[in-house]
């Protein structure tokens, strides 16, 4: 058993090591010290309670974003729309968070989270429903919906839901009420715990329920799924809605637990990192957690790395791209490490391109 787990994580682990090694070259090219830089990176992400909190806070939306991609993967679809789903989730959660007062926390906070989840679900569901009914490819549709979501949430936060208090001039909503704010337990944000619970729930649903069986069947063999009586269109649409819901929850947790409001331009790029996370986790919902923690750690430590070692924080982006590359093309790692090729499933999506 432990052997097989080892085999499963060997490639991602090696990919991380390779990525960091090439990062050393990049750091040297900037006349900086790799040791200093990486030490700063780790201290910046784990050094004290504050650092740990930051890492967990950064990992939280990454878990949700990673799940949004991984779950769609399972149904054979590529959800590039995490960004848009996250944005609408964030703005609607914030709207419920600041728009209602006088509610007890046990009602208000869940209501705000649900608002974000529903908004995300609708945003993802549009792509899924179009795919199921018209065959419009979800990659194109979700990319377009990302742009639309960006504009929509900017406008919402600059007009009807704008924070008009005091001296505010930028596009952002008022702070959410305390009763809708996700608390932090010591160095652990409750949002992170929620993300972990959701990740485990995703895994259980996918592996242990008939719905999960249907999703996986559609992902592996759409024709056989249809043959066995599964409503393929419904599964595609609902899985994309679930994926959107997960991303929307991520946005909601950002608004309610990290930023305290929605602000235009603040959550840029979060949704896209879900792709890296999901691939690093090989689309396994449980694998998403460590993958998100790793990337969250790097991002939390990046400022300190620039401060201490003078390395531009974009190094993190480059290292992430390299890791992604090595995970996607495991043959390189196998070749370097002389590992035996195993028949573990390689992630396949392209074959679904254009098929309705």
């Amino acid at each position: 058993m432990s052997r097989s787990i080892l085999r499963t994580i060997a490639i991602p682990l090696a990919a991380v090591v390779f990525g960091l090694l090439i990062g050393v070259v990049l750091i040297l090219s900037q006349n900086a010290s790799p040791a200093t830089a990486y030490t700063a990176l780790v201290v910046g992400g784990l050094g004290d309670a504050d650092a740990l909190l930051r890492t967990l806070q950064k990992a939280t939306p990454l878990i949700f974003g990673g799940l949004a991609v991984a779950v769609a993967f399972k149904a054979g679809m590529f959800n590039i729309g995490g960004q848009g789903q996250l944005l609408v989730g964030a703005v609607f959660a914030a709207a419920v968070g600041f728009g209602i007062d006088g509610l007890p926390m046990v009602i208000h906070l869940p209501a705000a989270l649900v608002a974000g989840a529903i908004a995300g679900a609708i945003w993802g569901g549009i792509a899924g429903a179009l795919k199921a009914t018209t065959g419009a490819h979800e990659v194109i549709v979700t990319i377009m919906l990302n742009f639309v979501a960006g504009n929509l949430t900017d406008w919402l936060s600059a007009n009807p839901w704008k924070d008009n208090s005091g001296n505010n001039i930028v596009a952002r909503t008022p702070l959410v009420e305390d009763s809708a704010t996700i608390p932090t337990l010591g160095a652990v944000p409750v949002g992170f715990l929620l993300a972990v619970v959701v990740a485990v729930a995703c895994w259980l649903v996918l592996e242990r329920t008939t719905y999960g069986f249907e999703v996986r069947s559609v992902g592996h063999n759409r024709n056989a799924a249809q043959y066995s009586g599964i409503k393929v269109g419904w599964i595609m649409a609902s899985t994309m809605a679930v994926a959107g819901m997960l991303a929307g929850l991520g946005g909601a947790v950002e608004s309610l637990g990290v930023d305290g409001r929605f602000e235009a331009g603040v959550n840029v790029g979060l949704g896209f990192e879900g792709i890296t996370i999901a691939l690093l986790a090989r689309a396994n919902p449980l694998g998403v957690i460590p993958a998100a923690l790793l990337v969250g750690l790097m991002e939390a430590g990046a400022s300190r790395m620039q401060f201490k070692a003078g390395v531009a924080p974009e190094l993190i982006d480059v290292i992430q791209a390299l890791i992604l590359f090595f995970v996607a093309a495991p043959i390189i790692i196998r070749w370097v490490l002389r590992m035996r090729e195993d028949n573990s499933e390689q992630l396949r999506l392209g074959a679904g391109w254009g098929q309705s």
Partner: protein
Amino acid sequence: MSEVLLAAHNVTKQFPGVLANDDVSVQLRPGRILALLGENGAGKSTLVNILFGMYRPDSGDVIIKNEVVDLHGPDDAISRGIGMVHQHFQLVPPMRVVENIVLGAEPSKRGLVDLEEARNRVVELSGRYGLEIDPDALVEDLPVGMQQRVEILKALYRDADVLILDEPTGVLTPQEADHLLSVLRELTATGLGIVFITHKLREVLAIADDIVVLRNGRVVGETKPAETNESGLAEMMVGRSVVLRVEKSVAQPGDVVLAVDELEVNDDRGQIAVDRLSFEVREGEILGVAGVEGNGQRELVEAITGLRHPMAGTMRIDGEEVTNGSAREISKKGVAHIPEDREKHGVVAVYSIAENSVLNRYHRSPFSIRGVLRRDVIERHAQEVVDEFDVRTPSIAVAASSLSGGNKQKLIVGREFSDDIKLLIAAQPTRGIDIGAIEFIHRRILEQRDKGAAVLLVSAELDEILGLSDRIAVLYDGKLMDVLDAQDADRERVGLLMAGITK
């Protein structure tokens, strides 16, 4: 004439887990037809793929025109005059006939395809060999017989003097097949040599000059038509004596189970594939649907099983209308379905045997309760299916992709037969599997009939239809030509109906 056109000399080819060719030698001379006979999986395809340069042998030699050659790819073989007509046509559907024929050897001017020249050459070629064809038709619009003609022209266009045909008659009516055989015979008159791969004994006896029989990757016999007969060949092929006819009792038809009335179904391209069909299937009988592939069988089966919406007409099962029922609703009525394409529809390759064994009933008790799968129950069920239906596998935990075709098919049949069946839809139930498995599945289908199930058997193998059916419906161009009682049906009559000729 001592020239050898094409030969394999002591060829051995190993695939992971299978010795596909074991020290195989065959030889083809000009003007002769060499039949390669063998069961599915006997190594025929591997051998011709080696001869055509698709695979390289692990050991042994390929000899073309008395010369040992080292083929690096099909282009090597083509340039040496080898042409091949594949079992699955290697044509590009949305391209024209002429484009398909010249592809890879295009006449060109400054890098641009000279379509005019190509068209002229195709017209000339088809005139010369009596293989008439419209060079500007899209391949996807052509019936299969015509597509096969394109394949043959493709080889002839490349000045082939050896033609390899892999199971060429499977997609033809008996009459078309006879016509093909006579065309081939004429071709040999020009000195062409032909390698003819088949598992149909009748054809071998009708056309071959030399016969080589393969079994389990080895040559187990070489003979000539004059020296043998069908049962002799069958025994050589299988390695034991074979009952060529299925033994069955007389049918005891009961009430109507499936009633199809004026059913109209479109294909993927929106064209009418099933044209106002009406028929009934009763308890305890097998209705065989004969016809050349692509005459609406697939669409008919998909409509009946709820995978495709009919455009018009009605279907009833046990008197209840199910015309627009979903696959699941129909399956709930006690309908079992053996799909025609087991890789595409029958199994999920990466799923374990256990998961595949409940592919159509995972949602029902006892396999799941309130949406939660019960793995122990599923695994027990899978073990039962594997035991009862003789699925050869090391474990029920392995992926279905590791099973052979016959074992996959037995797994599917086992899965479908594990409930009480009211109506069985069996589409090409024995395609591409070995004789042992064929016999096994035939017996099981008859067993279901005798237990009172209504069976709709769709098959492109006329022998299978004739052997199993109690009544035979013949489809041509989406229309029902006729429904015959089994005792009135013979190869000749059904064949004519399959070609749309009612007399």
